[in-house]
């Protein structure tokens, strides 16, 4: 029983990382109908920046906050400079541009910091946490708490603030929003900023477990795709639920089903993506769209 509880909590911890990453993908997809294949690499890159800052002797928390801010500004800048010119271009063009970003940031990380795996400091205590007689890893609990706070803040931002409302309007009805005086272009850039900030948080949260290396986010992004697709790629709630469900399910499968083990978890994520897209492309929480031909 204790074992199961521990496995579920550690599944929720990885799941909340998938959820943040999936939310980052959904934010951009809702705003522009683009899947940002570079999302994971952007997160990896800012995690390296956080690492670099801690190397200067800066307190860990300050370094993390600073890195997330840098991610935000970087996201806004990328949208303005690279994505904006192809915004109306055909989908293949946009996919290739985000793959270009993927390659650039992967290469830059290798260039600046090398391919040797680095350990990443954790802001959480290392001693296990005792809850109801079961020892949970403080790291896992910390990751869950931080992710939930982040997701809650994002949700509050979109529901309760004027600029959040403007961003939602710009995503859904760009023409009408423009008439109402909303700067649609800047709202989209802001969306990219938010997405890369959320992505950066998930990168920083996952790095102590995965260790820093330029390819560390490549499997995480596939899990995030699976989470987003499972929840419905247009639904923020779906992304969060999808991420948590996926995290717990993969952890339990990996632990208790011998045949899946650790290596086939990615294959399981791939299977989820393919099956959901074939059977119910709108996912658990998405709306079914009807296309006129």
């Amino acid at each position, binding site marked *: 029983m204790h074992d199961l509880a521990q496995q579920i909590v550690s599944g929720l911890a990885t799941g909340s990382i998938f959820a943040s990453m999936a939310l980052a993908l959904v934010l951009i997809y809702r705003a522009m109908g683009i899947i940002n294949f570079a999302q994971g690499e952007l997160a990896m890159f800012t995690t390296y920046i956080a690492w670099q800052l801690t190397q200067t002797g800066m307190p860990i928390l300050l370094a993390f906050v600073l890195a997330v801010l840098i991610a935000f500004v970087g996201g806004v800048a990328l949208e303005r400079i690279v994505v904006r010119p*192809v915004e109306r271009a055909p*989908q*293949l*063009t946009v996919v290739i541009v985000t793959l*270009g970003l993927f390659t650039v940031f992967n290469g830059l990380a290798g260039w600046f910091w090398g391919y040797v795996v680095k350990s990443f400091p954790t802001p959480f205590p290392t001693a296990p946490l005792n809850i109801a007689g079961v020892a949970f890893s403080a790291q896992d609990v910390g990751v869950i708490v931080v992710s939930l706070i982040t997701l809650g803040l994002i949700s509050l931002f979109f529901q309760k603030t004027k600029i959040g409302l403007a961003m939602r309007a710009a995503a859904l009805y760009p023409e009408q929003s423009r008439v109402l005086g909303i700067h649609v272009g800047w709202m989209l850039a802001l969306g990219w900023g938010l997405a890369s900030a959320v992505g950066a948080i998930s990168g920083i949260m996952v790095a102590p477990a995965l260790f820093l290396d330029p390819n560390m986010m490549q499997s995480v992004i596939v899990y995030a795709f699976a989470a987003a697709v499972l929840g419905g790629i247009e639904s923020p709630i779906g992304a969060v639920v999808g991420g948590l469900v996926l995290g717990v399910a993969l952890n339990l499968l990996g632990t208790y089903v011998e045949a899946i083990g650790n290596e086939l978890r990615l294959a399981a994520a791939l299977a989820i993506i393919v099956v959901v*897209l*074939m059977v119910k492309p709108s996912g658990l929480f998405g709306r079914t769209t009807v296309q006129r031909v």
Partner: protein
Amino acid sequence: MRLNTAQWVPIAIAAVVIAVLPAVVPSFIVFDLIFVAAYAIAVLGLVVLTGMNGQISLGHGAFMALGGYVAAVLAHNAGWPYWIGVPLAAVACGAFGLFIGLIALRLAGVYLALATFSLAVATPSFLKHYKSITGGFGGMSLEAVKAPAWFPLDAQHWLYYVAWAVAGICFLLSALLVRGTFGRALRALRDNPVAAVSFGINPYYYKTLAFGWSAALAGVAGAFLAIATAFVSPDTFSFALSITLLIGAVLGGILTFWGALIGALVIEFLPLLAQQVNAAAPSVVYGVTLILMMLFVPDGIVGGLQRAVRRFAPAHRTKPELEPFSPSAAMKAADQPSRE
């Protein structure tokens, strides 16, 4: 196949250059050129699938992996001669491609990109998991290819000519395939699926077949990669390979067969040059070039050259082509709904 002068002269020149090149370049470049042949075959697969039919695949490295491992397993575990591995790799990958093609029918543009991306990322973990067949992490080595006794040059030159002969066959067969009815159907489904279906073109048949053919080409390429290096491992077929192939297709020009050849040259030699700066430099150069090409020359090197030639030498136009040249026709296809 009837060709006009503007078409057969470049082909003849390319064939002659390929035939005499080993005599004039140093032998390490001959070795690189074997890889160019393999990449050209794989990129050709993307040209047929993405360029001509508008289906995005970010996972062609996975098909190359299957082809490479089919060739390697047959040679390593079963002890068969290397040349049997090549056609069998094509058959295995063709069948797997038909299967993926059936799935792809249900996935519109960007979802197909997402699924194939995930396939490419997951491929190495499959290879690592089934250790008893694939040799796991460490991969497996193949016996080095030997030249037959009647061949006057060494084994490397033998492999060079075999690889380019096979590449020639692949290009020829693909050219035969995409001309006439089949090619027109592919392009019609790319440019306007609704109209194409109204004219009685069966999208299931053509799109699945395009995927199968494209995957078979990638399989041949993978087999040659395995044979040329005499070694396969999960890292040979990492996600980076899939990206590299796409880069080759996009840089070369995804709408023409020449783009596959030029693209293959670029993805073989550009990293060798960039590596002299830093081990990570090729990725950065690739990424920046990809983005710049998409912003300014979306139809690639060959497409850009064709436009330049047309602008500056309109007199050379011999015969109007069947379809008007449209740089982004392939790319528009992804925007069309696949289930109509």
